[in-house]
């Protein structure tokens, strides 16, 4: 009965259905794991008491003959999803103490299907970052350690770093993430787990703290392709409260998982190579292509000519939308309000209160991006920056549309490196290069999944990414399953509970 926290969602559901253990026992093993590995900093707000209470309710429902797709399954929730009655911070000081009086649509769907929430997971502040080092509530540590420097703490990636670290360290069976430019796929790759960014519009954005509204998309992070398929089936769906939610039916994403790749055409984009990319990442990419070929897929080289324009265009679009979205944090309606300066009883003006609150409440990276956004949207620059970036975005989307006339899925590396040390973190624009392979799909709105395919020579997990046609998550998951079967990735992190 030990180590229930290490089960996959599929295995745990089977065990619960057969009565081999209770939801309470399963949840307790996750709560114990969270205690044991609290040094990872994965949770901002753990809610063990609420979790155990929810587990008891799940057990009572099962006893009463009820069942649901996630009944009694303990999950972690990225602290960007509003959860009714539980503090939601977006990892920012400015939302410290904010307790939503409503539940996000995605978490509402998960609760409807019986999930148990273990607490709120750490992230980069307002999901802006690729290393989970911008959280006001502290860094998240990757549970993996390198062979050459086992004492060095590694980043889990970001922005869904707490989600990736917690799933990899077996603190929860699965987690929610959000992906704006790679924030599900890049941390999944760094932590050796599987993460899926669905098509833009597949999961409702309602109740998720907004970063860049034309890019933000929620998705599952778990320890297998099948578990991601199970979670997506619950998270996805039309929601009238999100104006960009798409009204198409949610299929059973697990139904076609075993269908194989025979006869499918897989594209390798020649532009997905960058300077200083380690040879072992190129090798793993080619190996992954060979695994698909061995199972009957046809692998062809393709071109996505605007790949390298995606990152600069992203760093206009995302900050521009962020500066607009984050205008709401002004110290009036919720969250943090600064004190008047120098012991004065009052601010000199309302604007002074806004600016002081925002200056004290936002961290450095968020401030940088808001200022860039305000600048590129300002009079005289809007067309040169924002509209230019949106035109480039059309070209990026067109690249993918044309590619999917030739191929059924696209295979790439997820990241140009394995996880790096928290103290080795690159700065500024170089940091942005982490997302060079994940941003193009975000800009085009197409679905992408990262799964672990092997270890680096230094013993760290490396991910490969599959990209698919809009709303063809089924096809994407089917190829991912074939790759997972062939890769046989069973390595586990050193700091695992």
């Amino acid at each position, binding site marked *: 009965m030990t180590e229930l926290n290490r089960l996959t969602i599929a295995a745990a559901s089977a065990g619960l259905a057969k009565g081999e253990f209770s939801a309470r026992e399963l949840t307790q093993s996750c709560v114990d794991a969270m205690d044991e590995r609290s040094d990872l900093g994965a949770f901002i707000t753990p809610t063990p008491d609420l979790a155990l209470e929810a587990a008891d309710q799940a057990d009572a429902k099962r006893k009463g003959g009820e069942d649901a797709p996630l009944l009694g399954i303990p999950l972690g929730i990225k602290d960007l999803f509003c959860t009714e009655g539980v503090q939601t911070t977006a990892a920012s000081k400015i939302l410290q103490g904010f307790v939503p009086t409503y539940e996000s649509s995605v978490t509402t769907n998960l609760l409807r299907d019986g999930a148990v929430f273990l607490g709120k997971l750490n992230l980069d502040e307002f999901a802006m970052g690729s290393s989970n080092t911008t959280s006001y509530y502290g860094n998240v540590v990757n549970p993996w350690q390198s062979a050459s420097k086992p004492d060095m703490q590694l980043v889990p990636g970001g922005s869904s770093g707490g989600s990736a670290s917690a799933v990899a360290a077996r603190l929860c069976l699965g987690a929610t993430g959000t992906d704006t430019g790679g924030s599900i796929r890049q941390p999944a790759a760094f932590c050796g787990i599987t993460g899926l960014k669905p098509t833009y519009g597949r999961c409702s954005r309602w109740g998720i703290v907004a970063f860049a509204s034309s890019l933000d998309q929620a998705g599952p992070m778990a320890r297998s392709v099948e578990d991601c398929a199970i979670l997506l089936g619950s998270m996805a769906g039309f929601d*009238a409260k999100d104006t960009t939610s798409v009204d198409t039916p949610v299929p059973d994403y697990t139904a076609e998982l075993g269908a194989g790749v025979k006869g499918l055409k897989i594209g390798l984009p020649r532009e997905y190579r960058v300077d200083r990319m380690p040879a072992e990442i190129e090798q793993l990419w080619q190996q992954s292509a060979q695994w698909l070929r061995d199972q009957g897929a046809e692998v062809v080289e393709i071109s996505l000519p605007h790949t390298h324009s995606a990152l600069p265009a992203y760093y206009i679009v995302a900050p521009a939308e962020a500066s607009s979205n984050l205008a709401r944090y002004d110290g009036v309606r919720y969250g943090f309000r600064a004190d008047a300066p120098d012991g004065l009883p009052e601010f000199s003006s309302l604007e002074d*209160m806004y600016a002081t609150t925002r200056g004290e409440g936002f961290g450095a990276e968020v401030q940088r991006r808001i200022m860039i956004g305000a600048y590129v949207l300002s009079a005289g620059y809007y067309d040169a920056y924002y509209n230019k970036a949106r035109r480039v975005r059309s070209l990026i989307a067109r690249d993918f549309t044309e590619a999917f006339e030739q191929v059924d899925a696209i295979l790439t590396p997820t990241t140009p490196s394995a996880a790096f040390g928290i103290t080795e973190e690159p700065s500024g624009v170089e940091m942005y290069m982490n997302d060079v392979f994940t941003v193009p799909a975000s800009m085009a709105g197409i679905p992408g999944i990262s799964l672990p395919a092997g270890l680096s020579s230094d013993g760290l997990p490396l991910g490969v990414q599959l990209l698919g046609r809009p709303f063809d998550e089924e096809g994407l998951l089917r190829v991912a399953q074939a790759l997972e079967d062939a890769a046989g990735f069973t390595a586990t992190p050193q700091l695992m509970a």
Partner: protein
Amino acid sequence: MSITRETVEQAARLARLTVADADKDRLAGELSAILGFVEQLDAIDTSDVDPLTSVVGATARMRKDAVTAGDEPERILANAPDRVTDFYAVPKVVE
């Protein structure tokens, strides 16, 4: 594009951010680096494409213009840093 201290001050004002004097030179450098990075887009010919408006090609849905929520001041004001009866309270703005 090189960003000056004055441009930093202007962007900070637009963004409603108090920026310490000591940070302005650092920010000017950081913002210049980002804008320098995105300038490579100028080399791309975008004369034959429109700005992308929606990745899913969706048109805005219509709904009835009807009240669907409201009359719940306690839920709305629950997180207010300061309130007076059913109103948000802010610093005095009229002398």
